[in-house]
């Protein structure tokens, strides 16, 4: 399976994004990072570290679980529920500029769910989207503000971001999905919403 981004590349990409964030937001006072579980969270934390190095300011960082907002919940008559994880946003998002962070942007459905979830927490001044990889195939009108890498893919491929914090290694790999696993992906609660 081809590795399309290695550890080095991921590190440099995130540093670049951090600089872009500073460039576009001038003062980082009003901003906060919210990572989407699971792999958006370590990416958000890494961006927070970069932003601290660049600007000397701590940027509040939270974690958002979108499971309860998924649009495919309860639509499948069979199959177990997605495992629910904890949402931790230990600051008020009111009037803040929120940087929503995820690993892969695909159909846009996860982002739709995340926007709904965030709005339940308050009324941010704005929400910007950061993704490490944009693999295309949008099903909803969603566009990222900061993209690590644009990666043209076919529907038969799966893109996996692995991060040291959760997977022991930093890499992005593209895999060709066999017919069987496509069937699983469409029938059950697989990560179709990314």
């Amino acid at each position, binding site marked *: 399976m081809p590795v399309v981004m290695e550890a080095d590349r991921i590190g440099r990409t995130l540093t670049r994004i951090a600089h872009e964030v500073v460039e576009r937001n001038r003062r980082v006072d009003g901003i906060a990072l919210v990572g989407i579980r699971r792999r958006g969270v370590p990416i958000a934390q890494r961006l927070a570290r970069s932003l601290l190095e660049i600007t000397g300011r701590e940027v509040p960082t939270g974690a958002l679980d979108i499971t309860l907002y998924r649009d495919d919940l309860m639509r499948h008559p069979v199959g*177990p529920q997605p495992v*629910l994880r904890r949402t931790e946003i230990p600051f008020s998002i009111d009037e803040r500029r929120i940087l929503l962070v995820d690993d892969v942007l695909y159909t846009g459905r996860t982002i739709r769910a995340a926007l709904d979830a965030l709005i339940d927490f308050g009324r941010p001044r704005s929400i910007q989207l950061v993704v490490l990889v944009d693999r295309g195939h949008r099903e909803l009108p969603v566009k990222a503000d900061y993209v690590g890498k644009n990666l043209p893919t076919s529907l038969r491929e799966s893109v996996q971001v692995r991060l040291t914090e959760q997977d022991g290694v930093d890499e992005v790999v593209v895999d060709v999905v066999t017919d069987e696993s496509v069937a699983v992906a469409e029938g059950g609660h697989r990560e179709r919403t990314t």
Partner: protein
Amino acid sequence: MSAPPEASDVVRVAPDEATAGLRSKHLLSVEDLSPEEVLLIFDTAEAMKEIGTRRIKKVPTLRGKTVVNLFLEPSTRTRTSFEIAEKRLSADTLNVAAGTSSMVKGETLIDTARNLEAMAPDIIVVRHGASGACHLLVDVCSAGVINAGDGMHEHPTQALLDAFTIRERKTQFEGLKVAIIGDLVHSRVLRSNMLLLKVLGADVWVCGPQTLIPVGIERFGVRATTSVDTAVTDADVVMLLRVQFERMHGHFFPSLREYFTVFGMTAERMQRAKPDAIIMHPGPINRGVEVSSEVADGPFSVILAQVANGVAIRMAVLYLLAGVETDEEMS
């Protein structure tokens, strides 16, 4: 009261699983749950708890699902707890209570259930005075059934929220001494708690007047005693059960005053327990009967935490049960 343990210390289900579920779409008894399923419910409840701290305490998860709360025996805590849980998950809820249902006109439970069934609810939450009433409903209805207390049989969500509260304070169950004191014979809470705590590995002691200890209770793998001091000594958890006057058709002890003198939990008696022991009570409390106000409102008490956790546990159960396959063959 000790500080809550670090989240990372708590035993969890495989953290990388993307999906997990319960095998049954009903929750009738804690006996039906495997230890893994219990931990899944706890982990889910932990995430649900956060929703209660938000300004908008609502998620769209069960939008369009109908939940009927069929409460044919008085209940404030359990019914409101289920109702809040259902509303926080955006389900449409319907309450049928004993006094206002057609059962006062002589309708049988089965007929009531069939009529509710015709309105196509997704989940029915049942509280009934007869043991096993919810098992009857499972045969008649195609909806998922949650037992919210049936007679003297079981009260699974209460046991789950009790164990969840213990896990929050004590991290693990292995080797924990849990003393359950009070009216043992009439208590469904006791039965569900004994079954669940044994599965989780706790060392369970039960204590009460001889007349209120069911014959053969040792079969549940618990140790029975009539001495409160023996039960409380070195206990990590002291769980008090309500004296259930409404179910007592006879004289089980001479007077309330005497009950309190012999079995009532006081600060003095609590000194025999471990210094970080917690006091639990499923409610409603009879102050000055099974527990003194000093203890119920004191630093050991987690009684109100139990109430808050009850909502989270019921949200978790509703969420997980709603994902289980519906049996098409039943109608």
